[in-house]
C-alpha cells in the first residue's frame, strides 16, 4: 500500500475514534447547552465535570466560572470542540436540531433531554442520570418531583382559584397551554385563565385578563410590584379587584426551566403558601 494512502487511513481511523458510542464509562468532560441542563448537572453533583456552559446559564453560583460556548440557539461549534467534551447535553426546549446534527457529524457524543411536560421530567432526569453515571443522585432528584406530582389536588378539576402567570407585562405575555408553568398551576389546583390561548407564550388580551377575573396573578422574575411596567399593567387590571392582598404574587424563575428547582417553584405558587407570605409581608 502506498504510504500516503496508509497515512490517510490511519488519520481517518484516528478521526473516527470518538464516533464509537462512549457507553463504556461515565463522561469526564461535559458541555451543557441549556441553563436547565447546567442546573441539573450541578444538582447531580457533577459540577467538576462540566467544562462548558452557555452565556445564558446563570445558575448555580458555582457554574459562573465555567467556559462559555455561546448562546442556546447559536453556540459556537468551535468553542465546543476546543473543550474536547466527552458528552454534550442538549435540550429540545431551546437548542435547535441542526446544532445536534452538526455535533453528531463532528463525532461528538450528545444526549438530548426531550421532556417538555412536568410529568415527563422525572423520567428525563433519570435517563440523563444513567447517561452521566449519576443514577442515584438522579433518582433522588426525580423522586422529589414525583412526590409532588402524586399529591392529590386540593380542588376538583376546574374548581380551583383562577390564575394568570405573567411572563412580561408590556405587551402582556403570559404562560399559555403546554408549558411547565401551566402544568404546575394545574398541579397546584389553579385554573390557568390563559389555557385556551393556543400558544405556549401568547400575547394575551388585557381586556380578557380583566374580564376573566383571575383570583391570583403571578408575576414572573423581574416584574415585582415596584417595576413601573408592572405597575402600569396592574393599574389597568384594577377593576378586576386585584387590590386585595395576596392576589398578586411575585415569584422567581424556578418554573421557567425543567431543572432541579421545579419542586420549589411548585411550592412557591401553591395557594396556602403564597397567600400567607403576602399577608406576612403586610
Amino acid at each position, binding site marked *: 500500500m502506498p504510504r500516503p494512502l496508509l497515512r490517510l487511513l490511519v488519520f481517518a481511523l484516528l478521526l473516527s475514534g470518538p464516533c464509537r458510542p462512549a457507553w463504556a464509562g461515565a463522561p469526564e468532560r461535559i458541555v451543557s447547552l441549556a441553563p436547565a441542563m447546567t442546573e441539573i448537572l450541578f444538582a447531580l453533583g457533577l459540577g467538576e465535570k462540566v467544562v462548558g456552559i452557555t452565556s445564558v446559564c446563570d445558575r448555580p453560583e458555582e457554574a459562573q466560572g465555567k467556559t462559555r460556548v455561546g448562546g442556546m440557539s447559536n453556540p459556537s461549534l468551535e468553542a465546543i470542540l476546543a473543550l474536547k467534551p466527552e458528552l454534550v447535553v442538549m435540550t429540545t426546549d431551546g437548542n435547535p436540531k441542526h446544532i445536534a446534527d452538526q455535533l453528531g457529524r463532528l463525532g461528538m457524543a450528545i444526549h438530548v433531554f426531550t421532556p417538555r411536560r412536568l410529568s415527563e421530567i422525572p423520567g428525563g432526569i433519570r435517563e440523563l442520570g444513567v447517561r452521566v453515571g449519576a443514577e442515584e443522585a438522579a433518582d433522588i432528584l426525580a423522586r422529589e418531583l414525583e412526590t409532588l406530582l402524586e399529591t392529590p389536588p386540593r380542588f376538583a378539576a376546574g374548581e380551583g382559584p383562577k390564575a394568570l402567570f405573567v411572563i412580561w407585562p408590556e405587551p402582556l405575555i403570559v404562560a399559555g397551554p403546554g408549558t411547565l408553568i401551566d402544568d404546575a398551576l394545574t398541579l397546584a389546583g389553579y385554573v390557568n385563565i390563559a389555557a385556551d390561548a393556543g400558544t405556549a407564550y401568547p400575547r394575551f388580551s388585557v381586556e380578557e385578563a380583566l374580564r376573566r377575573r383571575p383570583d391570583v396573578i403571578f408575576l414572573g422574575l423581574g416584574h415585582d410590584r415596584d417595576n413601573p411596567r408592572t405597575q402600569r399593567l396592574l393599574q389597568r387590571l384594577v*377593576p378586576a379587584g386585584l387590590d386585595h392582598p395576596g392576589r398578586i404574587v411575585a415569584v422567581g424563575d424556578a418554573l421557567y426551566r425543567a431543572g432541579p428547582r421545579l419542586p420549589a417553584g411548585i411550592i412557591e405558587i401553591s395557594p396556602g403558601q403564597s397567600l400567607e407570605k403576602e399577608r406576612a409581608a403586610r
Partner: protein
Amino acid sequence: MKRTRMLFACAAALLLALASVFFGPRLLNPLAMDAEARQILLLLRLPRAAVAFLMGGALGASGFILQGVFRNPLADPYILGLSGGASLAAALGILLAGSLPLPLPFLAFAGALGACALVAALGRGPEGLRPDRLLLGGIGLGFFFSAVLLLLMTLASDGGLKRTILWMSGDLSSANWELIPGGLVLILGGLALALARGQGLNVLSLGDDIAHGLGFNPGRERFFLFVAASLMTAAAVSLGGTVGFVGLLVPHAVRHLVGADSRRALPVSFFGGGALLCLADSLGRSLAAPLEIPAGVIVALIGAPWFILVLRKKGYGL
C-alpha cells in the same frame, strides 16, 4: 366639490375609528353597557383606540409628506433610520437601566429624533437638504442602527431586551391615557406645521427649479417639512413602537381618493391612517382572542394585496 369630498372622507374615517372601539374579544353594545363594559371601554379600549388613531394618523401624514419631499412613492416614515434609532435608544436605556431611569416612550422619542437630526446632518448640501442625500443617509444609518441593535441582542443575556424589541415592533395593548397628551401635542404640532407648508409640499413635487420659479426656497421648505414628519414619526414610535406599511399604503390610497393636492390629501392621510390602524387593531384583538395579533400584521395582510392590485390596475407614479 373636492372640499366636500375631503370633509366627507375625514368624517367617515373618524366614524370608522369610533366604531372600532366596540369590537374586541367581545362586542360591546353602546346602548346597553354594564359597569364592567364601561370600565373596559374607558380603561382599555378608548386609550388604545386614541393611541392607534394618533399613531396611524402620524404615520399616514408623515408618509405623505416624505413621499413628496423625496419625490419618491416608496418613501415611508421609517426610511429615515428612525425606527432603528428609537429601538436602539430604548435598548440602550434598558441596558443602562440603573443609571438612566427614563421611561421607554421618552427614550424612543429621543432616539427617533436623534436619528432624524443625524440624517438631516448627512443630507445637507450647500443648497440645503437634498432628497438623494437624505435618502442615502437614512438608509445607511438605518442599517447601522439595526446592526448595533443586533449586536446588543447577541451580547446581552437579558431577556428583557428581547421583549423590548418586541414592544418596539408595535404594541398598542399597553396604551394608557398618560401617553396621549404628549403624543397629541407633538403630532398635531407636526401636522399643523406641515399644513402651513402645504403649498411648499405641492411645489416640491414639481422639482426644485419650478419650486424656485414659484417663489419658494426648496431647501427651506424641505427642512420644515422634514421637521414636521420627524416630529410626527418620533411621537408615533414613542406611543407604540413601529408599525409598518401604514405610512406607505395610506398616502397612495388617499391620492387615489381625493387627489394629490396636499392641502386636501394631508388631512385625509392623517384621518385615514388613524382609521386604518384603529380598524386593524380592533381586528387584531378580536380575530384570535384571547390571543392578540399585532396591528401591523393586520395592516400588511389587508394592505399588501390591495396595494398590488391598485398598482397593477393603474400603474400611476408620484
